[in-house]
């Protein structure tokens, strides 16, 4: 059996006295797409942020592509080269053009030459279908376009795994489709992805495995069909009912 790209073993995490994650374990194999669903406050974002070391953990171990998530700055940077992260609020750099947004990290973190970085920027922009926006500033783009640029920016680092945290939640409904489509194409190309989402359609049709987080732990998980068609726990059944009504 191959090593999982992402492996969480018995993660615990608290803010002060509030325990946010309790004994979370999860394996993500290469090329696998895992969707994470759950109520607000169940710890989905926190788990995702632990994977690339944005949050520290109190217990358990996380390994990503052979790196153990530790706290020394240098090791964390090496790990983060392998992990792309896309945020709900895009977080593009407003003072840089699309190209500069994308080529910044390759140039600085990977010490890549300018023209090589530009080549990469062109390639990833084509991948998200925004080649013509290469010289635009973020504010000149729609929300959906900004989010696609943010995805391209992560791709430019050639990560082994991509993390998505409710990347369509801040978008107008008519703009979510273009972003989901880009993510679906990424999945088809074999990218390993962990996707926190409220889009049940995406979870059902694109994800290989679905995880239901509840009260800070992995409450139930399974392949997409089994997960949605025959949920075992009453909590998941209720969650699925309530999200269908919406």
């Amino acid at each position: 059996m191959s090593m999982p790209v992402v492996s969480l073993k018995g993660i615990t995490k608290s803010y002060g006295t509030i325990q946010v994650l309790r004994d979370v374990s999860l394996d993500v194999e290469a090329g696998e797409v895992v969707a994470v669903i759950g109520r607000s406050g169940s710890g989905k974002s926190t788990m995702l942020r632990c994977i690339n070391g944005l949050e520290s953990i109190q217990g358990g171990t996380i390994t990503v592509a052979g790196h153990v998530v530790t706290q020394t700055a240098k090791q964390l940077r090496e790990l983060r080269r392998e992990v792309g992260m896309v945020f709900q609020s895009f977080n593009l750099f407003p003072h840089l053009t699309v190209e500069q947004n994308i080529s910044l990290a390759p140039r600085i973190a990977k010490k890549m030459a300018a023209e090589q970085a530009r080549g990469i920027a062109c390639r990833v922009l084509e991948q998200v279908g925004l080649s013509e926006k290469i010289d635009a500033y973020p504010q000149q783009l729609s929300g959906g376009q900004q989010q696609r640029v943010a995805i391209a920016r992560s791709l430019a680092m050639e990560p082994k795994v991509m993390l998505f945290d409710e990347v369509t939640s801040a978008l107008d409904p008519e703009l979510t489709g273009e972003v989901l489509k880009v993510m679906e194409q990424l999945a088809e190309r074999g990218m390993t992805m962990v996707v926190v989402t409220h889009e049940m359609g995406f979870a059902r049709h694109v994800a290989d495995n679905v995880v239901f987080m509840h009260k800070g732990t992995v409450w139930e998980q399974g392949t997409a069909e089994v997960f949605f068609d025959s949920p075992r726990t009453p909590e998941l059944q209720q969650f699925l009912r309530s999200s269908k009504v919406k």
Partner: protein
Amino acid sequence: MSYRFQFDVVLAQSDRFIEGAALTLQLSGEAIVFGTVIGILGALARTEGPRWLDWIVGAYVEVIRNTPLLVQVFLLFFGLPAVGVKFTATEAALFALTVNLGAYATEIIRAGIEAIPHTQFEAGLSLSLTRLQIFRHIIFMPALEIIYPALGAQFTLTLLASSIVSVVAANELTTVAQIIEGETFRSIEVYTITTLLYIAMALGLRSILALLGLVLFRRRRVVQPQVRMSGI
């Protein structure tokens, strides 16, 4: 009115006025450059550095901002020799102006850094950048853009406040004016001309800063204002 203005007597000294004004410009120009460097380092120390450094820089800022420049000039002028530093009055003046502006610049720049959403920082971290790289490439320019008007106003205040260093006879414009007043006894004429020179220099500095702003923040001219407001 029995008073007869005699500008000609004073204007005969225009070479000396211009020399004084030139030194004022040089002094404040240097103070602006060095003070801004202190401001950047101070702001970095307060936002990124360890507790104790934050505390020291904070104390520096508070002491400077809550005492008059006049007293700071005297303290440096009389205090530096005590620690064995040799200097001219002009150098003491430059030192005082720099230390003074450095404190204000530290607070202004820090406010700019803190106005940048933390998510920008996290985006940089996620892209495998170091804290210093994030500061330099991601935080600095947007922060500078936010505080540019406040920083520019502070620069202008430094230029104008430089007249105070005349108390140690620093040879800049106000010192020259006082000497000429002592020679000609035409106080009103001397200080009218001096004031006009300061006003001209202040307006000049503000124009230069405005132009520099256009160059530094290219995006402002590229992005339409309405579009900008609907953005992040």
